[in-house]
């Protein structure tokens, strides 16, 4: 028997896929764009959670951010729609096939400007999906005009100052009915990773507003969405540890250290340090804390609100085991007797 040099087995996840199976095509975004870092975290999270990429639906609107679904999970279907209207497409898709994991990527312009109407109603419906806002306070793709999440007083390179209040998409989402609401920063690898993994197991709407600096148009002195500003001002509410339900290690946290939240599927999130007693299951608490943050001009990040058990929109519809999209004709077209009976009613 000839000896062969053993090829090292590539690292795989719990469904036997490699991280490469979660990659997409090469990014065409600017080098250093926050959006690229978020794509990396998404790749890692889906890989680590062992989600089958074919069972993922990627959705987006229009913008630099909305291009990014092309740059992760190339094996997943994707629908890059029109500007600001990702929520509608997502709603149709999530209802038509509620067995898939839907992940949508939008921008602050795409969501908070043109997309506001649909955003509000998606949140209200608690549609089962992960909704990520790659939030840079500007319209990147159209060359850097202020979006509606730009902070009051933030300055463009041209010197123009934003005079209108920023829309706090997290506060809105909580107000409206989303059940997993968090803010993070593209540069905060650990926090973002934990939030994304938890997001994958959540059954309702996950709204993840990720501050994601635009290096080309909004990364200068005077901007409140620059890397430097975020590094200086990010105030995480807590440290987040996520323990998926399939993880064999049963982590025990010291009693009284932080808050432990159990997700719908039994996965757990442990929140420690900093604001140790912050209770992310209190809607009023979350809204109040965010209102305070606004008054104090804090850039709070972390898990603001979680309601793991609230019925999602597809729960409310009472959908069955087979996705609507895959029901056979025998189920979707009633027989002739039904037509005859209906005709009789009109005679």
């Amino acid at each position, binding site marked *: 028997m000839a000896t062969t040099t053993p090829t090292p087995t590539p690292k795989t996840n719990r469904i036997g896929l490699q991280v490469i199976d979660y990659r997409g095509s090469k990014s065409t975004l600017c080098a250093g764009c926050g959006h690229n870092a978020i794509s990396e975290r998404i790749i890692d999270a889906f890989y680590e959670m062992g989600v089958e990429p074919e069972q993922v639906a990627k959705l987006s609107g229009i913008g630099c951010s909305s291009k990014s679904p092309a740059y992760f999970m190339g094996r997943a*279907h994707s*629908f890059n729609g029109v500007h600001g209207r990702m929520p509608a497409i997502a709603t*149709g898709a999530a209802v*038509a096939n509620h067995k898939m994991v839907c992940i949508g990527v939008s921008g602050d312009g795409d969501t908070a400007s043109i997309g506001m109407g649909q955003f509000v109603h998606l949140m209200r419906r608690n549609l089962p999906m992960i909704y990520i806002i790659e939030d840079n306070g500007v319209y990147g793709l159209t060359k850097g005009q202020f979006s509606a999440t730009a902070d009051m007083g933030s300055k463009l390179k041209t010197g123009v100052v934003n005079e209108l209040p920023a829309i706090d998409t997290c506060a809105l989402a909580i107000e409206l009915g989303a059940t997993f609401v968090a803010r993070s920063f593209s540069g905060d690898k650990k926090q973002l990773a934990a939030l994304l993994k938890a997001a994958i197991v959540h059954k309702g709407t996950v709204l993840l507003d990720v501050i994601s600096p635009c290096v080309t148009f909004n990364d200068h002195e005077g901007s409140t969405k620059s890397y430097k500003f975020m590094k200086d001002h990010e105030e995480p509410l807590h440290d987040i540890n996520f323990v998926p339900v399939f993880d064999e290690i049963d982590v025990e946290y010291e009693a009284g250290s932080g808050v432990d939240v159990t997700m719908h599927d039994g996965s757990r999130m442990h929140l420690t340090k900093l604001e140790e007693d912050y209770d992310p299951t209190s809607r009023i608490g979350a809204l109040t804390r965010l209102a305070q943050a606004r008054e104090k001009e804090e850039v709070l990040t972390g898990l603001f609100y979680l309601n793991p058990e609230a019925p999602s929109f597809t729960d409310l519809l009472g959908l069955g085991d087979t996705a*609507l999209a895959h029901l056979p004709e025998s189920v979707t077209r009633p027989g002739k007797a039904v037509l005859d009976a209906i*005709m009789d009613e009109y005679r």
Partner: protein
Amino acid sequence: MASTEVAPGHSAGNGVKQEPVVNNFSIQVATVNGSGSQSANAVLMRTVFLMGVPVSGKNLFPSNIAGLPTWFTIRVSKDGYVAKKRDSEILVAMNAETAAEDVAKLKPGSVVVYDEPLKLGALRTDVEFFAIPFDKLVAPVAPEPKLRKLLRNMIYVGVLGHLLHLEMTALETAISKQFHGKKRATEINVAAARAGYEYAAANFQPVRYCVQPMNENAGKIIIDGNAAGAIGTLFGGVTFISWYPITPSSSLIEDLMDLLKEHRRAPDGTPSFGVVQAEDELAAIGMVLGASWAGARAMTATAGPGISLMGEFTGLGYYAEIPAVVWNVQRVGPSTGLPTRTQQADLLSTAFLSHGDAKHPMLLPCSMKECFEFGWRAFDVAERLQTPVFVLSDLDLGMNNWVSEPFEYPLDKLDRGKVLSKEDLDRLGGFARYKDVDGDGIGWRTLPGTPHPNAAWFARGSGHNERALYSERPEDYVNNMDRLNHKWETARDVVPAPVLEHTTPGAKVGIIAFGSSHWAAVEAVDQLAKQGIATDYLRLRAYPFHKTVAEFIATHDRVYVVEQNRDAQMLQLLKMDVNAVEVVKLRSVLHYDGHPLEAETITSSIAKQEAK
């Protein structure tokens, strides 16, 4: 005066001859909306229907919930004509606000049944007046005052029962049907009708207009086009619906929801459908595209303002090639326009909805059967062609009651179009989403969730190549747009072909009509024939046009395009499509005041143009 008002039916003045008119007249009931006359009118119509006589009903109502004038017209026609008729011979005047004007419009010899306190009898001497003391008659039948308002209406039904020789058994069956056999409601309404009937019988002679039984309605149904469309959609295997309420389309979806609840739930209640009341029409069409992309049979229904909001998404559907079914139950535009009036004026804007080079198939049902058929077929067309398809109904079809043959169960299986399964991919290895492998301009698609590593493709409204990859290359763009044009040619044979409804040997004059105009067109063909104008009549059922349309035009000297809009929109579409030398043959018959089209409008317009 008073004696005139309560005297039995008498001859109208000025020598109008009083021959009996059998099964050939119209009844107009003038009330205010919200007064509950709808049930009474439906009962009246059904009574005639049950007597086997061809009948049709048109409801003219305001865009308002209660208190404004509304008119319901029932046409009784032994010849089976169901289009709107210009004049009504019988007027039931219940609305003080419009009574004088309504009476003034009548032709001599007409009949007026009216609410006694309105004191209309002195308005004219050439029509017959019947004063009815509704309040007095209703009091004994209806103990509760709230009910009285509603039951007053059933009284005029009874009065007409006597005056027009309606069969009381048919009337009672109609009432029972109207109230779904609910005992108490049926009884009390029958009592009201009887009170009217008896009062009339005791005080008046029947008038010269009368209904005599025929046998034209065996097996037939009475239905509106929205209900028919809803039933069609149900049998089209719809799985996803999103909508935003708008007159006159709402009832299509509301009926559909009822049907789905009843017929599309598993024994444990699990639905085989999802309905989302969207926040607006932008969202409604977006959800349809999302669901359809994911593999559902998805539809929405709306009217003009909704269509105007769907422009951007429709372009996405065209360019990314996502099936979608959109019903447009047309009302009168532009803008809010007249929401409760009928028109066919969304043709051009729908055909070219979206910026850029884009065009969309439109199906044009003319009847209840076609509302049903296109209800299911629209999905087949949309999935076969992988593009948004519009079904253009209108308020006249959608919200009025029509007598129809019962609907036929679809013969074919659902046509889900070109979809590759996991097994196909196992065999093929992969695929190119936008490649014209079959020569018909239509690529193959996969559905999200197909468990194969090469199943995914990237749907996008930005430039793409055959593999659905982002591309700005000019040749990729041109290739793709040319293929879409080729698909458009394919579409001509996929959409319903036109129907040659009438031929006269040697006719030089052609008529083209479509949708709800059909019924006036068939009547006009007969009227024209009587005037010595021989015509052939082709009914369009879809856009893009089938090649037989060009042939029809080629074989006639003059072709009149009949349509319900100001700008001759169908004519314009034809001009763009037919051979340039044929354009000179095309002429227009237009009607756009929001009321359903009458045969005379067509007849007189064509006769005038032919006389030139």
